[in-house]
């Protein structure tokens, strides 16, 4: 049942409603983990509060003790996921779920904004909707978990082949322990849950299209870029390109198999062999971690020599400054990436990007305007693009046309539109 098709209107009943209390329910808290989804949800929480909304944030966490729900900070609460099923999509412990539903239902919120269903529970959403038929429900889908059982990444489990559309037999080939029928039911459960939301927010048009193709047609689907938060938004943006940085590249992130750091390191080794003046800085991990994950990269690292530097973990608050010290930020992910925060951060910093030519990366980085594309997973092609990028003229040109990240005001307007708090003519 699509609730929006019954008695709900997405338009506010009165002007006062535009300040309707909001409860953000999110799969994690950034104090405890640094994923993009929880960070985006928390920044939304702060931005709404700063804009005068009555807002609370209820985040999943892993903690022990007799209490299932704990206050964390003013307006912030944590709930334990211990009672959830192993896949963290449903609750095994009915009492835990019911307690959380009662807690949420007691919130003064007129709008519940969910980020993710994982670690929250499809059943919790359904039960809360039954308990609070007066409230509006909105969800932001940061990933494609509903579509793909492989961590929502739409990349095949064997090899690095990209997946463009889910299908029961295809999914079963990725997970032979499950029959195709399992994926029919899995899709139906997600679809039935997601259809009940009045609005679905996507951080990119790419992911929205994936969900549309998959069959989700909510009453309203909105593409709204994640907001970086006031602290990063207030950092002064670099106004002009520094020609000296044109040949200096940087990577920000973890050395996970899908982030494509191995592709970058191989590509850089090829590039630096042909153009010795290039440099690459890797933020977020150490050399040993990289070799632990990709032992075969040792020759490439040796080949890069002193042109390659590892800087380990960095403080998120420093990211803009760190990016401003590089000529280009490279996002070499081999999976789709829906809206990587690193792209927004680079745009905020004023540093152009070199990205894989797929998914959210290709969408967010306009080739020739915000950065350059290379063939996903191809070190030789990346090497060629790195050498082109090192041209100071090209670097300056692209730096000049580079988009900024989304501003707070624009973000709030988009959010209010998603919440149905904005008159139609203003949209």
């Amino acid at each position, binding site marked *: *049942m699509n609730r929006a098709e019954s008695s709900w209107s997405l338009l506010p009943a009165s002007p006062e409603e535009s300040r309707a209390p909001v409860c953000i329910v999110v799969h994690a808290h950034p104090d405890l983990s640094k994923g993009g989804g929880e960070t985006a949800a928390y920044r939304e929480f702060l931005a709404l509060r700063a804009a005068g909304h009555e807002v609370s944030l209820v985040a999943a966490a892993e903690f022990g003790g007799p209490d299932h729900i704990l206050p964390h900070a003013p307006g912030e609460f944590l709930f334990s996921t211990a009672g959830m*099923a192993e896949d963290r*999509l*449903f609750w095994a412990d*009915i009492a835990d779920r019911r307690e959380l539903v009662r807690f949420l239902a007691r919130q003064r919120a007129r709008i519940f904004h969910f980020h993710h269903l994982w670690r929250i529970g*499809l*059943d919790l959403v*359904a039960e809360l909707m*039954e308990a609070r038929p007066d409230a509006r429900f909105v969800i932001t889908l940061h990933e494609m978990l509903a579509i793909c059982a492989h961590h929502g990444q739409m990349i095949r489990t064997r090899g690095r082949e990209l997946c463009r559309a889910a299908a029961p037999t295809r999914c079963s080939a990725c997970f032979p322990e499950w*029959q195709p*029928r*399992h994926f*029919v*039911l*899995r*899709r*139906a*459960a997600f*679809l*039935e*849950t997601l259809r009940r939301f009045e609005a679905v927010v996507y951080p990119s048009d790419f992911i929205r299209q994936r969900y549309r193709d998959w*069959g989700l047609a909510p009453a309203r689907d909105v593409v709204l870029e994640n907001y970086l938060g006031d602290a990063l938004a207030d950092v002064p943006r670099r106004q002009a390109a520094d020609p000296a940085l044109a040949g200096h590249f940087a990577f920000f992130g973890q050395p996970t198999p899908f982030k494509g750091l191995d592709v970058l390191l191989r590509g850089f080794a090829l590039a630096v062999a042909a153009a010795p003046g290039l440099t690459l800085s890797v933020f977020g991990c150490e050399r040993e971690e990289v070799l632990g994950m990709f032992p075969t990269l040792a020759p490439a690292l040796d080949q890069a020599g002193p042109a390659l530097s590892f800087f380990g973990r960095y403080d998120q608050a420093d990211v803009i400054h760190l990016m401003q010290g590089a000529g280009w930020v490279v996002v070499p992910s081999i999976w789709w990436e829906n809206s990587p925060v690193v792209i927004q951060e680079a745009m905020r910093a004023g540093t152009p990007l070199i990205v894989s030519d797929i998914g959210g990366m290709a969408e967010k980085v306009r080739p020739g305007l915000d950065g350059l594309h290379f063939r996903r997973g191809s070190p030789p092609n990346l090497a060629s693009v790195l050498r082109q990028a090192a041209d100071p003229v090209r670097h300056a040109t692209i730096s000049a046309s580079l988009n900024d990240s989304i501003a707070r005001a624009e973000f709030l307007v988009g959010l209010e539109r998603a919440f149905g708090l904005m008159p139609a003519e203003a949209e």
Partner: protein
Amino acid sequence: MKVRIGQDDVLALDCVQPLGGGHVFVQGWLSWPRGTATPVLGLRAGDLPLESLAHVLYDRSDLTGAMDDGRNSRGFILVAGPPAGTRLAGEFHFTVGTDEVAMPATRLGAPVAELLARQPWGAVFDLIAAAAADSRLRTLLVPEGGGAGALDRWIASVPRLATPVENQGGLAHVEAAATALGECVVAVTLPRPLGPQEELRVVALAEDRDRRLPVRLEGPPPLRAEHGVRLYGRLPAGSGLPVASFDLLVGLQHPGGGAWFRTAPRLIPAPAFLAALQHPHGDGNAADGFAWLHGVLEMRRAAFDVAFHAALASCAPRGMPGEAPVVAVLHDMDDRFAARLVFLAAAEIERRAAEVVVVGAPGPAAEVADVFLQRGRIPVRVGLDLPGAVRRGTYARARLVPIEPAALAEALETGGLDALFARGIDGAALAPVLRLAGAAGSLDGGDAIARLARLLAGLEGGSGLRHRGMPLVGAAGHLVTEHLAALWRDAAPALRARASHEPR
């Protein structure tokens, strides 16, 4: 007592004992000139010829070689009684052809049970086979019948064999299986070639209170192979469904003796049973086996048609009023997301159903039932005892709506829940469904409902009704598969007539 009758025949009596109901048990031996016809034994009471209920002739080792050359000598057991509606009067006489001799006026010899215990097993088996065919001989089974429960005691002395079994009693392999319909198969494989006069015979032993009642099995002659023999039999029509558990009394006899044992056949669903039936010995004539199987299946089909149409007739179509309570029967819930989907659809199901029944594997079924238990809005049951439901008429006034997860998923996506709930079947029609399930599926409620749902959805004869996991291969396998599919396919129109696509 030994007397000469007429010119040539000699009659010896070892035992004469009266049984209940005016029946007489006589055992002895008979000798007649070789080359002449076997004398026909009979009894007469006064002027009234008695009816022979059992007349068993058998070889006796104590007679072999003891008689004069040129004569045949065989033991006999004769049980006779007055024809229905007559009374015994006058003295008993033995008749041999046109000659006769007076019977002793008093009991002669040992009690029947004691005597039978000393007789060759083949002879007693013949007597039991006769008792299976003629209920009047059951006087020999009960103590109060005058025979002191002689056959019952003899049966109890036959060794039990837990089948399947290998290398027991000179038999390489023995297996026995049965269906809820009262069919059975006994397959014996030998470590040597099957003798030309070797014969497999089986009598069912039905439980009747605390004793075993021999029941004759109907079926074609056993299928003989070079090293084995296979017998298909079925209890007479009219047995309940499921039939009460029964044992088999098995004899593999040859002129010099044989092997006898009792066994409890494994009760298995019809598809598995037929798979066991078509399993080739590997050493027989394939054409013979195929023809034999074909005959068995034809016999099955004929028996099913009679039973199915009788069941249909017992539940004549009736309009299902719109207010007939709807029972949602959730089946095939064996996937983690099935229960989850039901959770999400629970409110919509509750809106349309008065009760939920969850069938299938216990774990997932319990998980689905939990959804409704925790909501507490409508009753929910786990499991469907199909025979019990038919017997008690549990759902006779309800409309059953089978729902499987994929159909529920589709209905949720397309907004087709009303259409899904319109596909119900009159609960009174469970009786023919039970017959169908017994003959071509399983009496397990989950399996039967799942197949019924596919039948109503128009998938009969397709892969949805196949019996996966059964070793139904080759031409014989195809024959069995087609037989099973045809039962469902041909039953479909009649069952559809009992189904509703909209509440009436």
